[in-house]
């Protein structure tokens, strides 16, 4: 009997291990780059677009150690592409001179959306000698992470700011990132003439208060939010959110959701053929995911602080080429979402400051000092006409909100793009400070 048990157990173990070991880890999605989708790196005149090409970096020099920690994969949020993009960007910039000749070394860490893992990640980055982080995005224990980063003296550049970071002088965000999207998404609908808005949001405590906050923020514009629904784990029918919003008589809904859930709600809207306008984040939708929505894509408005990857902007030629060269599917122009793009943009901005400051020794203190003093870092049209002053404090609650530029994008199925048919079309642009001015969160009026 004992032998039989052992044999049976051994068989189960073997099957389980085989099934797991045959896996692709879900993230090793390297595919063939799609030549023709984007310009070859060799064709690009870097100086003309505001970049540089000084040849390969010198590996004998002390490297610039850059870190990134975020949740790589979870059922709601999977941001490994941010880490992949930072590595791809570092490789590309290294080929063009790195950080004033020194190579850029990237250390990434998966916080697993778990407090303990996040704490371990900070320790890991600290021990690895990381001098600055780029595009890190905390999803758990951010109060401790922010404080620890500050105590370790590791400045955080181009991070996705959360509530813990708004007053953190160690945070130097490029934009108000996820919080900006959340607070400004109704504005994208307002720009389309919608004043009765439904809110479909993540089922988290921090998001539960959103309805009241947005109500306060948009009260002066006559905007109301007659419908609000959280999307709980295990939701089996996403059409209820569309139908619920329709029933409440709203003109549009704002999807304050992670990527996967947002796509599901949009697909439900597509299936139902709803008339609602749907506002979503370019952090959740790429060219290819919008294309899959067919005609329904024309009912969507997208919001972000910088243009989507397929937009024709000179510096984007380099961005697309650098990320596509990694061969990773999610970094190809058609699949590229805004959040991984920020890794490239953040690294560019950091290197630009290092270049301008002629910095060759990279210490935490030195980088921090540089960030505190840098003014008007050229952003090459990425944030409209706006350049970036890292240490700028905004009035109101959201002090570290970076640049002010936010823009609405709609979908034109007939427009051409580097990723194929259809493209995002720029709509109204507005200022973060202006939208918040006079509300409990922004500068006091008159605005």
């Amino acid at each position, binding site marked *: 009997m004992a032998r039989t*048990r052992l044999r*049976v*157990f051994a068989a*189960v*173990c073997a099957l*389980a291990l085989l*099934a*797991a*070991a045959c*896996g*692709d*880890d*879900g*993230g090793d999605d390297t595919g063939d780059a799609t030549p023709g989708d984007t310009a070859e790196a060799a064709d690009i005149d870097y100086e003309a677009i505001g970049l540089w090409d000084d040849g390969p970096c010198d590996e004998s020099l002390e490297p610039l150690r850059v870190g990134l920690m975020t949740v790589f*994969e979870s*059922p*709601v949020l*999977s941001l490994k592409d941010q880490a992949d993009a930072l590595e791809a960007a570092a490789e590309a910039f290294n080929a063009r001179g790195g950080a004033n000749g020194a190579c850029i070394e990237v250390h990434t860490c*998966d916080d697993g959306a*778990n407090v*303990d*893992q996040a*704490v*371990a990640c900070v320790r890991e980055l600290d021990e690895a000698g990381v001098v600055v982080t780029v595009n890190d995005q905390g999803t*758990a*224990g*951010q*109060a*401790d992470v922010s404080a*620890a980063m500050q105590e370790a003296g590791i400045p955080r550049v181009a991070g996705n700011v959360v*509530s*813990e970071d708004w007053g953190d002088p160690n945070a130097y965000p490029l934009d108000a990132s996820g919080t900006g999207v959340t607070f400004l998404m109704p504005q994208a609908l307002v720009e389309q003439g919608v004043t009765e808005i439904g809110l479909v949001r993540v*089922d*988290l*405590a*921090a*998001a*539960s*208060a959103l309805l*009241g*906050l947005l109500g306060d923020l948009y009260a002066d514009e006559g905007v109301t939010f007659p419908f609000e629904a*959280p999307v*709980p*784990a*295990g*939701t*089996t*029918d*996403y059409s*209820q959110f569309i*139908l*619920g919003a329709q*029933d*409440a008589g709203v003109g549009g809904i704002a999807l304050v959701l992670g990527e*996967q*859930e947002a*796509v599901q709600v949009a697909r439900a809207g597509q*299936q*139902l*053929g709803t008339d609602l306008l749907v506002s979503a984040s370019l952090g959740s939708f790429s060219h290819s995911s919008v294309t899959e929505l067919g005609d329904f894509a024309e009912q969507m408005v997208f919001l972000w602080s910088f243009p989507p990857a397929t937009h024709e902007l000179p510096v984007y030629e380099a961005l697309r080429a650098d990320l596509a060269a990694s061969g990773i599917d999610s970094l190809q122009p058609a699949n590229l979402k805004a959040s991984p793009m920020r890794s490239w943009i953040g690294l560019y901005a950091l290197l630009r400051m290092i270049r301008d400051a002629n910095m060759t020794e990279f210490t935490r203190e030195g980088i921090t000092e540089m960030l505190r003093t840098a003014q008007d870092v050229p952003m090459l049209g990425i944030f409209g006409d706006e350049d970036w002053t890292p240490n700028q404090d905004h009035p109101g609650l959201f002090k570290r909100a970076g640049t002010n530029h936010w823009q609405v994008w709609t979908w034109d199925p007939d427009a051409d793009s580097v990723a194929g048919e259809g493209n995002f079309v720029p709509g109204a642009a507005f200022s973060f400070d202006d939208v918040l001015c006079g509300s409990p969160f922004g500068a006091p009026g008159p605005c």
Partner: protein
Amino acid sequence: MQSFLQFLIIGLGAGATYALFAQGAVLVYRGSGLVNFAQGAIGTLAAYVAFVDLVDERGWGPFPALGASVVVAAAVSLLFQASVLRVLRGAAPIVRVIATIALVGLLQAVVAKRYGVANRPVDTYLPDDVFRWGDVTVQEERLYLVGITVAVTAALWAWTRYTRIGMAINASAQNERAVQTLGWSPDRLAAITWGLGGAIAGLAAGLAAPLTGLSATTFTVVVTVAGLGAALLGGFHSFPLTLLGGLIIGVGESMATLYGGDVQDLLNQDLITGLNRLPAFLVIFFVVVIRGHGLPLRSHVAERLPRLGTGAISVRGLLLASALAFALLFGVMDDDWAQATYISIATGIMVLSIVVLTGYAGQISLAQWALAGIGALIAGRFVRAGVPTELAILLGVVLTIPVGLVFAIPALRTRGVNLAVVSLGLGFLVSEVVFANPSYLGNRIDGGTRIGRIELFGLEVDAFNHPHAWAAVNLICFVVLGIAVANLRRSRTGRRLVAVRTNERAAASLGISVFGVKLYAFSVSAALAAVAGILVAFRGQVVTYTEFNVFASINTLGNAVIGGLGYALGAVFAAPNAIGGWGTRVIEDWIGLGAQWDVIIGALVVFLILIAHQNGVADVVVHGRRLWERLRLVPRPRPHPPLPEADTRPVAPATLSVSGLTVRFGAVVAVDGVTFDVRPGEVVGLIGPNGAGKTTVIDAVTGFVPAAAGTILLDDRPLDRLNATQRARLGLRRSFQSLELFDDVSVEENIRAGSDLRASRRSWITDLVWPGRHDLTPTAVAAVRRSSSRTTSTPSARSCPTVAGASSASPAPSRPARRSCCSTNPPRASTSARAPSSPASSAGSRTTAAWPCCSSSTTSAS
């Protein structure tokens, strides 16, 4: 009205999905008496294989892929039944449930490893036209889903009702041996049940995938949140009622979406969260409470639990282990290992709470981490309000106890799987209603409770900057609480818990308040859970509540079982299995494997332990005592000290008078106008064929069933309005036809359980600190003397401690007399037999304790 119709239709669609998953679980339960938590995970794996490997990678059509999903799920389910459950056939039900939970972990990790954890959309393949009737929109796909679910329900109903094999499966769940004698192989029947149950999971997942997308956890959540609730509403038996249950839950959720704002306005609240879970939970809660019984029915078969430890503490072993732990912590471990230490130990403390609640008292709760979160919330709010941290923690622990009592309410009316599922719902409700509502948490923007960095008694111990210090705090708490839990086991309070765990009816017959014991177990367990919760929550500057979910509770229950559910020591062996704990460190640091491997290897280790030793690691360690004795880490067993001489005194005589006793079960009159007296010194026999109502008379006299008419007097005191416990305390006790013993404990403890009545209320607390100081009553001494040398393997031998336990307490002060009743169905042509006169009685004892056997229904008086 149109809105109502619209959301009714939406709810029916979602409810059909719940019901379909639930039908598989009901089928498995009917065939094997086992709640299959892995129903969703099996479906998930099958759906991934179908839609990713076959449709996306190999270009299969969706319908052949759906077929493949059914086949794969059936195969996985069958493999699990054949490889694990067949080996665990004789194990306690909870052990087998834990095996299904381990399967959930294994399958989810394999899916995450192979396919990633991000949600993958699946294209719709059922006809998806949209019909509009006025303003009401109906999606054709949902109609198909409802239709398929109704068809599956009807097929299952007909199959189990009208086919030989279906009826055999039903019968097998009731009595495997009886079915075997009819020529059916239980293994074959179980294989059919599991295979078919798995196939239904594959079908449900394949049909739901286009609606939900695919992720490693979605279907497990669906099954756990709603599927099991639907199954519970169907009593884990009725397929049509399960369908109805699923539809009620689905409609309840959609109506909450529709009317949530109105409810909020009605209650004048800025924010109410979790409304979508509330209707379903309330329905489940009230159905369970209404259907339930304070004491189990005579037909109830108590679920066996893993073996109990004795609660003995080796002081030398404890000191050595503690010293070693501190030496390793401060001398060897780096920050990562210190972090793993506090994660493990907090889980260990939670395991202690499960040992008390489930191991000792037999109450299953899958909401322990929700209670832990409540403790953390209360303590966190006090810290935030400026209360000193030490006091805030104390208040958090103390104030969680009343919440634990609320969690105990279902346990007063139900037990076993029903209790587990209701507690699951309660856990979800707390997560969604309390932990998702920032109004309760302290700050609307943080989404948590900001407490800053923790100092205790002037020492900086915050986990981030001082992980070793925080681990030490955890370790100290663990040792102190572990001792308290072990003490509890050895105490008279512990014996009460064990009595209730083993047999609620027998416990009540000994005067033990079953309600009181359950409430006590939930209270102690809530306090321990609160400590665990505070230790988990206070490691950060902001308390967040996502960790306090039912899945953590389920995992920790699994850890408790593999550690040893009946042992305080089990917590030591359960602790390393915590995700992020020592086990994870070993796998990541020493073996060098990355994410998900800790879960995969952990699940395989669980299977191994369950297969090899179902009572847990602690049981192996404790029963391998010889080695420890040789190392002098535990004391060699000493002979029991001689019992004192019994101080026997005569009993004040009392007469039991029963007059016109009538008992009705609905329209059936089971007992009609029975009248008799039992005078001092008499033995009265009740004789009759099976079904005559003998046991019902005893049940009614002792308060186990309500009498419809008649009076029962002990001397002149009417007993009619008293419950079984109160009657026992007045001296009217019983034994049972089936010679109910507390099989988990020794003969002496059986008798002690009956003689512990004199314990003061204070002993509920003092027993945690100072157990084992309770002398036996004189009658119990006499009973132990007669019984302890006998084995309990034969009916006649088992009757001795049964009767001895029933008569071993000192009488209540107001009523010195004691009556013991026992009832046995005699053979068909029965005659009454007078029980031999009791030696204790003849020696002038105050009770009729310790006669060797009862061979007929007798009521006797000394």
